[in-house]
């Protein structure tokens, strides 16, 4: 097994993970053999187009979707082999934040109860203790516990709901949080608030994050390393600055070019992006990006490219890497 | 009399069929059809006397144990089979044959056998004397109507719904649950009859819409009963309609199960009977149309008693009896799950509540009542003594100890003696005596009680003529005509 650029012993080690969905008599190949490591204290950004399997990967890490094959090692323990109580214990250490903050709060329960729920599930019997913890995390995410605890989710804006979700995920003092597009549904102005909050929480609670997003700029703002995913496979992994400055995989390059720049002097380059991603039900053979890749040739359709280290700490799965 | 035309008869029930082996007993709707398709040996004339039909004359032995009938000649069934003594005997034997297990056999237990000494003579051999046999076999029932032997033999299971008789009408078509179309029999032995070309029988189960059908002209004559008093009164006022009524013998009756508490105590039974104010009850359930009954025979019967021993309506006495009994009086009464059954049940309940007895109404469907009654799974059950020409068959079955129909489970040597005596006595005066004594005894012991006498109703368009009396509760339209 190839060792990716990991500075310390990884907290999370995903090894050749394969996740599939049955759809009638067809199979959706959502995640097809993804391996990545996240070191303790690190933020790994995961970007890719819609439907490429980011959420599926995130959920498979948490065992909300069982993998078809492959392993998920968390702090040295194999989550895929865990069942029942053991898994439930482990869940306290690993948390999840969703894209749609409003949908991830039960519309009929009060905020105080929602945030206290993980404590109840974890078996914290003492009500006063629970209340103390809830107050603590709510204040930490910048909400006034007194004002908030007795209200229902619909009384809050999206940004506030996301704060509540963050508070809920923090209440058990987890080590690792999967953030599944936590800001995609938010406004530009609110988005910045939440990103800042996440950064702050990370520092304050010593978290390790898997940060999923489809917006490269957002990922860059918070990640130490970035993994680019395309149609169930990883294309490129590398330290943020390096990857953005010198993308090696043509897909990463395409993504970077497609971002609209808020500057009228930068004329948008027309015609960079070609085609649309194929269906994960029948992914192309060989390199999955070849159907849209300007550099694709015979070899790309015959041979699946492996992740190779192209620069220190930067890996790419491409037969014809850029530069 | 005008020939031609067609009428529609609105009936209450759906006809199940005509084969006695299948249907066991005919109901009122089947009677009407049977009266048109089949003939009986005898019929009742205007005065209620037995008159010839397929039998032209009859004689009896002195002990009334043997009756000989001379049959009409030249009569054929609709399928061409000749009607003769042999055919009649086959009809009878088929019912009587134990292998056939016909429910109908019960009603001919008193006939030992029927002989056919020659082609146009039949002889009834009875087990007990019967003084009035020709009148009792006039009803167009499962036992008395005569089927074509060839037909039932060739048609097998299908015969039930494809009956063949000698009657004035031939079954033309029959849609289950809907219409039965009867066409005039052109070869009917009674020349010149019948008058109508066609009779259509339709089940119209709902009383309101049945009456509406009569009003709107979809039906020319409908079956009705006192429960529908509002409509009967309306029809009486309507010049376009005619109300046919017939005050029959018999009564609507109730039997106490004297084997179970609280009816094992005569005081309770008497109290309940005395609590009923029949005129008021008639007012409540039928606008006063119902005629109170004080004995099982009724005004329509030839049994007329000076003293039938009826218990008076006396609330105070009833209360006293209940008080005397000491224990709370609580019981269930079976009631048919029909509007009429519910109404009567509630009225009785009301009377009895007033004297301190609690009756609970148990609604059951019509089919359940006989089986509950035969197995004695009841405390009080409604029953009916129908309009037959002679009281004997029903009185004997209902009250003689040991009879499966002696529902009260009451046995009294004097009652048995009187019943036995009445059935072998020829003299009407003496028989009246006996039956009145029986009535007094039953009334005194209050093992059964009677609410109202049987009155039969048919409502027709005023244009329908020639409708006979509703003898035996049969609406017989076979000899009617339209004006």
């Amino acid at each position, binding site marked *: 097994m190839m060792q990716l650029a990991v500075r310390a012993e990884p907290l999370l080690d995903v090894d050749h993970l394969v996740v599939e969905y049955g759809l009638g008599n067809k199979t959706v190949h959502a995640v097809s053999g993804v391996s990545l490591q996240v070191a303790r204290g690190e933020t790994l950004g995961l970007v890719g187009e819609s439907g490429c399997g980011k959420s599926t990967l995130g959920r498979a890490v948490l065992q909300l979707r069982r993998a078809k094959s492959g392993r998920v090692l968390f702090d040295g323990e194999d989550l895929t082999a865990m069942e029942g109580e053991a898994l439930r214990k482990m869940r306290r250490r690993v948390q999840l934040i969703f894209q749609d903050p409003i949908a991830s709060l039960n519309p009929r329960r009060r905020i105080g109860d929602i945030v206290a729920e993980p404590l109840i599930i974890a078996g914290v019997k003492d009500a006063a203790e629970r209340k103390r913890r809830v107050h603590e995390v709510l204040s930490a995410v910048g909400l006034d516990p007194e004002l908030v605890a007795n209200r229902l989710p619909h009384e809050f804006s999206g940004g506030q709901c996301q704060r509540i979700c963050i508070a809920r995920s923090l209440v058990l003092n987890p080590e690792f949080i999967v953030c599944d597009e936590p800001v995609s549904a938010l406004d530009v102005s609110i988005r910045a608030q939440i990103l800042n909050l996440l950064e702050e929480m990370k520092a304050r609670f010593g978290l390790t994050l898997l940060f999923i997003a489809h917006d490269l700029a957002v990922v860059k703002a918070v990640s130490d390393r970035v993994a680019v995913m395309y149609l169930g496979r990883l294309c490129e992994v590398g330290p943020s600055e390096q990857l953005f400055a010198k993308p090696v995989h043509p897909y990463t390059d395409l993504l970077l070019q497609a971002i609209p720049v808020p500057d009228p002097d930068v004329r948008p380059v027309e015609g960079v992006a070609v085609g649309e991603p194929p269906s994960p039900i029948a992914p192309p053979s060989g390199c999955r990006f070849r159907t849209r890749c300007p550099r694709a040739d015979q070899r790309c359709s015959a041979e699946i490219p492996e992740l190779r280290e192209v620069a220190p700490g930067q890996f790419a799965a491409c037969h014809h890497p850029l530069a | 009399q005008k020939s031609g035309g067609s009428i529609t008869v609105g009936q209450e029930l759906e006809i199940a069929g005509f*084969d006695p082996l299948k249907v066991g007993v005919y109901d009122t709707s089947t009677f009407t059809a049977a009266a048109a398709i089949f003939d009986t040996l005898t019929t009742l004339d205007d005065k209620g006397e037995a008159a010839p039909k397929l039998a032209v004359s009859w004689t009896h032995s002195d002990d009334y144990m043997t009756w000989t009938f001379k049959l009409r000649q030249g009569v054929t069934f609709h399928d061409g089979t000749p009607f003769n003594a042999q055919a009649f005997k086959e009809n009878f034997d088929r019912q009587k044959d134990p292998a056939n297990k016909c429910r109908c056999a019960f009603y001919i237990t008193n006939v030992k056998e029927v002989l056919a000494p020659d082609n146009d003579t039949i002889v009834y051999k009875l087990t007990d004397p019967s003084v009035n046999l020709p009148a009792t076999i006039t009803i167009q029932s499962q036992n008395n109507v005569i089927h074509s032997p060839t037909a039932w033999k060739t048609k097998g299971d299908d015969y039930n719904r494809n009956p063949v008789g000698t009657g004035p009408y031939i079954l033309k078509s029959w849609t289950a649950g809907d219409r039965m179309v009867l066409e005039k029999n052109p070869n009917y032995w009674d020349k010149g009859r019948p008058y109508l070309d066609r009779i259509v029988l339709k089940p119209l189960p709902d009383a309101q819409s049945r009456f*509406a059908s009569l009003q709107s002209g979809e039906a020319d004559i409908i079956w009705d009963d006192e429960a529908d008093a509002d409509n009967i009164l309306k029809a009486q006022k309507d010049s376009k309609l005619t109300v046919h009524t017939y005050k029959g013998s018999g009564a609507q009756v109730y039997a106490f199960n004297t084997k179970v508490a609280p009816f094992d105590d005569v005081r309770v039974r008497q109290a309940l009977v005395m609590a009923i104010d029949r005129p008021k009850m008639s007012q409540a359930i039928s606008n006063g149309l119902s005629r109170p009954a004080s004995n099982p025979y009724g005004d329509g019967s030839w049994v007329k008693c000076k003293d039938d021993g009826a218990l008076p309506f006396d609330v105070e006495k009833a209360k006293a009896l209940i008080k005397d009994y000491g224990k709370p009086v609580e019981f269930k009464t079976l009631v048919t799950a029909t509007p009429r059954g519910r109404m009567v049940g509630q009225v009785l309940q009301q009377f009895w509540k007033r004297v301190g007895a609690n009756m609970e109404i148990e609604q059951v469907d019509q089919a359940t009542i006989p089986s509950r009654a035969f197995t004695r799974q009841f405390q009080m059950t409604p029953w009916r003594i129908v309009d037959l020409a002679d009281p004997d068959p029903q009185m004997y079955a209902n009250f003689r100890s040991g009879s499966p129909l002696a529902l009260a489970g009451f046995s009294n040597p004097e009652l048995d003696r009187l019943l036995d005596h009445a059935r072998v006595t020829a003299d009407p005066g003496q028989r009246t005596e006996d039956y009145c004594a029986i009535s007094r005894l039953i009334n005194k012991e209050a093992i059964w009680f009677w609410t109202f006498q049987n009155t039969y109703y048919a409502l027709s368009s005023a244009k329908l003529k020639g409708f006979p009396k509703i003898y035996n509760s049969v609406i017989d339209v076979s000899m009617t005509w339209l004006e």
Partner: protein
Amino acid sequence: MLNFVVRRLLAMLPVLLAVSLLTFLIASLLPGDLALVILGDQATPENVAALRRDMGLDQPLWWRYLSWLGHVLQGDLGRSYRTGQTVLQAVAERIPVSLQLMLMAEFIGLVIGVPVAIACAARAGGAFDRFMTGSAFAILSMPSFLVAILLIYLFALELHWLPATGYVPFTEEPLNNLRFFVLPALTLALAEWPGIMRVLRSDMIATLQEDYIALAKAKGLKPARILFVHALKPSSLTLVTVTGINIGRLLGGTLIVESIFALPGIGRLLVGAIYTRDLVILQGVVLLVACGFVIVNFIVDMLYAVLDPRIRHGHA
């Protein structure tokens, strides 16, 4: 698609089996011993025992069920002990009536319910909407036995437009047949349309909020086209379910309406069978009616696929 059809058809078998078992159990739990009912006044213990033996009533229940099922599988549903008719004959005679009644009732129900629902949804909360919602409740509060007699009074006795009761087969006198069916079908339809109206109205209201309706307006389409082409079809899935259930229910007959209007339908046959303890007819007819229900359900599923291409293409 074929796969889908076959799978659905196979899934129906257990339902039918369960219905047959249920019917059998219920029929054998009914009070009133069949032998006693048949023998009537003639019943002596010996007679009853003999008859029970003849009819196999002394066998254990499961055995009777299996042997009945065995016969059914060979296509023999049995014969009524009372009328001598086979179950198939009895049903064949009655089913056209129930079918026609059901079809006409659903048709009238839809003809009233659908336009009213559309009109209500188009102006939800408006005067017409409120009035019709209120009327729907008023009609819902009138049991069919009352509605039926009121209709008879009005149309048969007062106006003389339609017959009060009766029936002729369609094959004999088509026009008259329709006349006979108008009032009973209307009675049923009056009870049906409030339900139809309610589900369609609320689905329509939801659909009319959709972006694609806004786009249809923005495209300058005629209002009628928007309502009937763009909004009605995607709103009608629940309606189809409800209609399917109604049809299934009406297949079992509607005793009250059949009795009042003297229609020889399945309802009266079934209840008659219960009252006379004609268990062969009862079991057979219930089983056939259940088959009908299952088939209707199947058609509903197919209709889903027709109405919604997403279902057709397996994108649930």
